[in-house]
């Protein structure tokens, strides 16, 4: 008995976290800054006493550091309560700022749900949304995009810089050029890029999320470039240049800023280390798991993220089986989502949506983690297929 228990523990003792695209593990710099700011940054930065002045210093420093990393002016940057709220604010504010021009929002079919739900609200309120398709690799149809943004009464356009589900990097600069020709401001959701790869130019509004780069959950970034016709969609509140209401979680903001600076300095090295691991996963999964579809653009992609779908396998069963072996991954399969719908991204690409797994790496991911995943995955999938009686179909 004891021997067995030890053997079992050996196999599963070190959990492998492969879901950085949802939330990267808290960066040590974020943790340190968070703890320090809990002591030092709890006061309201808008008050006139010494504790408040200290909080104000911390907030100003966080804003300056983050703006510098992004290459924008500090007064163009607001901190929000999440990447989701930043995306809502970006979309609705862009529409509000140009409501006299028209009520048409152009966006890709593979935006994050935050953008799609904001678009849905706009449509429910009488506005129009024009969806631009992607190809099987998840790449934007640039011709359709250019035509759409040049249409009548287009108030704004939204494009995810790189897909959070399949990793495909979008032609942001080309899409931005089409927007510039049409005089339409472009909002870019850069949540999966900031802190990992350089963000392309040409946008007017940008958002990101701190938990994607190893900052704490509950901090988003909203950048509105000077001169952009943009108006906050929320009730009036003077904080954060009036762009996003409410008291900030200042310790979390400080931690987000400190960790962004740290990860940005290391980003190129991490991308160079993780991208070949992703290539390895793409090649080995395709070669060693029968009837699997590795999706997304194999070249123009994020360095840390790869997605594949296993034919005849139930996505939820696969996640549970991987979890039992110590692997934390996420999935775009319908049975794993709250809405019981397949991922709209996989749907838009026309690729298999069941048995779907997204693996996303972070600075703590090692070659050994990836090797262990690759060594165990074929057997896990084979077992599930055996149980379902679908071998040989």
């Amino acid at each position: 008995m004891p021997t067995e228990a030890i053997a079992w523990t050996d196999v599963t003792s070190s959990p492998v976290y492969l879901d950085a695209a949802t939330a990267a593990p808290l960066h040590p710099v974020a943790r340190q800054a968070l703890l320090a700011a809990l002591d030092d940054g709890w006061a309201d930065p808008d008050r006139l006493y010494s504790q408040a002045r200290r909080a104000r210093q911390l907030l100003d420093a966080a804003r300056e550091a983050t703006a510098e990393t992004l290459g924008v002016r500090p007064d163009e940057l607001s901190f929000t309560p999440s990447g989701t709220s930043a995306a809502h604010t970006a979309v609705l504010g862009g529409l509000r700022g140009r409501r006299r021009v028209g009520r048409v929002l152009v966006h890709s079919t593979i935006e994050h749900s935050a953008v799609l739900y904001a678009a849905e609200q706009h449509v429910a309120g009488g506005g129009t949304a024009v969806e631009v398709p992607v190809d099987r690799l998840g790449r934007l149809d640039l011709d359709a995009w250019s035509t759409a943004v040049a249409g009548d009464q287009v108030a704004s356009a939204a494009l995810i810089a790189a897909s959070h589900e399949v990793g495909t990097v979008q032609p942001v600069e080309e899409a931005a050029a089409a927007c510039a020709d049409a005089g339409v401001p472009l909002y870019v959701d850069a949540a999966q890029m900031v802190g990992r790869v350089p963000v392309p130019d040409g946008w007017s509004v940008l958002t990101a999320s701190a938990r994607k780069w190893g900052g704490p959950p509950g901090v988003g970034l909203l950048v509105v470039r000077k001169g952009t016709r943009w108006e906050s969609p929320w009730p009036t509140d003077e904080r954060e240049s009036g762009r996003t209401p409410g008291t900030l979680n200042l310790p979390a903001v400080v931690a987000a800023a400190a960790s962004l600076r740290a990860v940005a300095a290391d980003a190129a090295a991490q991308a160079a280390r993780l991208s070949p691991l992703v290539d390895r996963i793409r090649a080995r999964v395709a070669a060693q798991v029968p009837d699997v579809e590795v999706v997304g653009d194999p070249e123009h992609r994020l360095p840390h993220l790869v997605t594949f779908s296993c034919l005849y396998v139930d996505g939820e069963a696969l996640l549970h089986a991987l979890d039992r072996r110590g692997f934390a991954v996420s999935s775009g399969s319908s049975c794993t989502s709250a809405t019981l719908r397949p991922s709209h991204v996989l749907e838009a690409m026309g690729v298999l949506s069941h048995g779907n797994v997204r693996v996303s790496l972070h600075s703590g991911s090692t070659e050994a983690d990836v090797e262990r995943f690759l060594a165990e995955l074929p057997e896990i999938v084979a077992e599930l297929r055996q149980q379902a009686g679908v071998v040989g179909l």
Partner: protein
Amino acid sequence: MTVREPDGDVPETPAGPSGQRPDEVLDCLGQRCPLPVIALARRLPELPVGAVVRVLADDPAAAVDIPAWCRMRGQEFLGAHPGPAYHVRRAH
């Protein structure tokens, strides 16, 4: 899953977008993906080349996964229509 045979009571089944009447109906209503795809993968190879199967499936994932399966297996996806139903022709 229930399988209705072509000589049974399927003549009221409307022709697919291709105009070809299905030879068989797979009723996968109420089944979660990947079950409708599995049912199709089991049955199609048992039918003659050229035969058309109508898969009734209301899991929204079927709309994505049945065409994707056809592409992966080199079978012919004829189209989707109200039902929700998906018509597939055995191509080889």
